[in-house]
């Protein structure tokens, strides 16, 4: 299916996972990502794959741990409260250096929160999420096409760096329909000599484990893991720069917030305000370089978020607080309107004059 087809974000993501070679899906029902499971339930039995509805999010992520240990591509999807439950397992995946693909179609929180779109799991996902020293790769799509493309990318990065990768979407990304092109993916094939596939009496036993009772050994594994993270930060950070060449003000946003912000930037440009946008595509690794560079040229940043302001801290860190970073936000399942963002741009531009 190399032709353009109209698909829901959640379904495009599921189909892309299958095209990436994923044949094992485990999940537990939660709004607003049920289309992923429904798609997998329909498709997996037809292609010799396995869809299994687990008894809980905790069981699902541990089934993922089992398949990942066997060296096969595997995924789970959930939404914010369910991801919190999976965090124990994600920490174990990171500790055992296992590749896995996880989807968080975020909803408002904390607690049971709501079911409307949100970006308030930014801290949770970009700081690891569970206990211990670790990161996961976090990809933030802003279109249905990216829901698909970043899924394939996520599987590849997870295998290459032996760590979990997550698509951090939101209810809007999951539910909206757009034309999407798939079918020409060439997923990477990565050798997995560490996998527990049975010794065949040909080699010493493999052990998948995150327990190190000797603190020196545990420290060494953490140092090694962070050396790998440094390579990822160097090589894998992705972002989009939009109208940034002559910008005085830099709007920054990811996911649905970037769609809203793009309209606001265009509207502001129409009124003669020199504003551009930096859109992080990887949230971890955060694309620090373009922000550091922009901080030398622009007068201010505006972080547009569906949260009480979480990515804004990474912007401040990446720019070393050289320029003021303002927050323009809604939360709890509310989405900022282009008018709200435009008003913020005008307010900041007015203050600059």
């Amino acid at each position: 299916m190399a032709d353009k087809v109209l698909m829901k974000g959640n379904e495009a993501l599921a189909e892309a996972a299958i095209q990436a070679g994923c044949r094992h899906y485990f999940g537990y029902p939660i709004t607003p990502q049920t289309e992923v499971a429904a798609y997998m339930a329909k498709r997996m039995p037809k292609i010799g794959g396995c869809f299994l509805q687990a008894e809980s999010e905790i069981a699902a992520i541990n089934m993922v741990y089992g398949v990942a240990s066997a060296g096969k591509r595997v995924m789970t999807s959930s939404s914010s409260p369910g991801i919190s439950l999976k965090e124990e397992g994600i920490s174990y995946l990171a500790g055992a250096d296992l590749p896995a693909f996880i989807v968080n179609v975020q909803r408002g929180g904390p607690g049971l929160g709501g079911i409307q779109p949100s970006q308030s799991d930014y801290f949770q996902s970009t700081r690891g999420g569970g206990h211990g020293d670790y990161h996961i790769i976090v990809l933030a799509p802003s279109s249905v096409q990216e829901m698909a493309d970043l899924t394939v990318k996520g599987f590849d990065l997870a295998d290459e760096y032996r760590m979990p990768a997550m698509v951090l979407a939101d209810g809007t990304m999951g539910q909206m329909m757009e034309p999407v092109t798939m079918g020409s993916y060439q997923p990477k094939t990565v050798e997995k000599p560490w996998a527990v596939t049975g010794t065949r009496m040909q080699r010493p036993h493999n052990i998948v484990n995150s327990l190190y009772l000797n603190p020196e050994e545990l420290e060494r594994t953490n140092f090694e893991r962070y050396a790998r993270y440094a390579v990822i930060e160097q090589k894998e950070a992705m972002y989009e720069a939009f109208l940034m060449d002559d910008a005085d003000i830099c709007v920054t946003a990811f996911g649905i917030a970037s769609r809203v912000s793009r309209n606001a930037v265009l509207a502001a440009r129409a009124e003669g305000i020199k504003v551009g946008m930096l859109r992080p595509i990887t949230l971890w690794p955060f694309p620090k370089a373009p922000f550091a560079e922009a901080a030398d040229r622009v007068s201010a940043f505006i972080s547009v978020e569906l949260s009480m302001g979480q990515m804004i801290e990474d912007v401040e860190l990446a720019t070393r607080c050289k320029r003021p970073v303002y927050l323009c936000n809604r939360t709890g399942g509310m989405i900022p309107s282009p008018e709200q963002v435009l008003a913020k741009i005008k307010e900041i531009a007015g203050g600059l004059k």
Partner: protein
Amino acid sequence: MKTVFQKPKALTDAPLHYCPGCTHGIIHRLVAEAIDALGIEGNTVGVAPVGCAVMAYDYFSCDMVEAAHGRAPAVATGLKRAMPENIIFTYQGDGDLASIGMAETVHAATRNENITVIFVNNAIYGMTGGQMAPTSLPGQVTQTSPYGRDVKHCGYPVKVCEMLAQLEGPEYLARVAVNNVKNVLSAKKAIQKAFENQIAGKGFSLVEVISACPTNWGMTPQKALEWIDEKMIPYYPLGVYKDRSKEAGV
């Protein structure tokens, strides 16, 4: 010279860390003997628990995975679904299987997941120093039930085989003990059957092994073995609780 006794091939040369008088060593041996007898070592993946047997991954020669506390049946489910031709077993204690991992246990059983579960019930949390387990007996003194387990306050012990036997799913549920030669021989048969069931594709087979913890029970090894006969077995009767091949008249 004729060899009359040797270590099973499915055990590594790593020295076991278990306390003197602990019967985990016997149970490890029985599992390894079954793997040897069936010639499945090269095809087997074991899942170690959190608890006293946490380092079982160093002791079995087959490929091993260390699971989070209680999650071994879910990890085993993933392994089996990924590699249906491999033999997958879990080795779990009472806290792991019957407390924090109860949901994973019940649902793996009701799905009749084609795995083998070795459940070591010694009525106490050993690794953390002797706290009350879901299987601690009424009145049993532990670090967290210093006046004896008061069933009015913290409820009754969980009888895992009896409970799971109510489910339609599981293939085979048996309770054995390893406190004397006769019981060890029965345990060996049950454990081997639990592996044979998986090879035959029959489904979820769990063997509950009543085991001694002299250290945390505060007894000599000899007294601990006697306590199994006096206190444990009357509360947890030995026997086969479910065997679908028998039900079907096979």
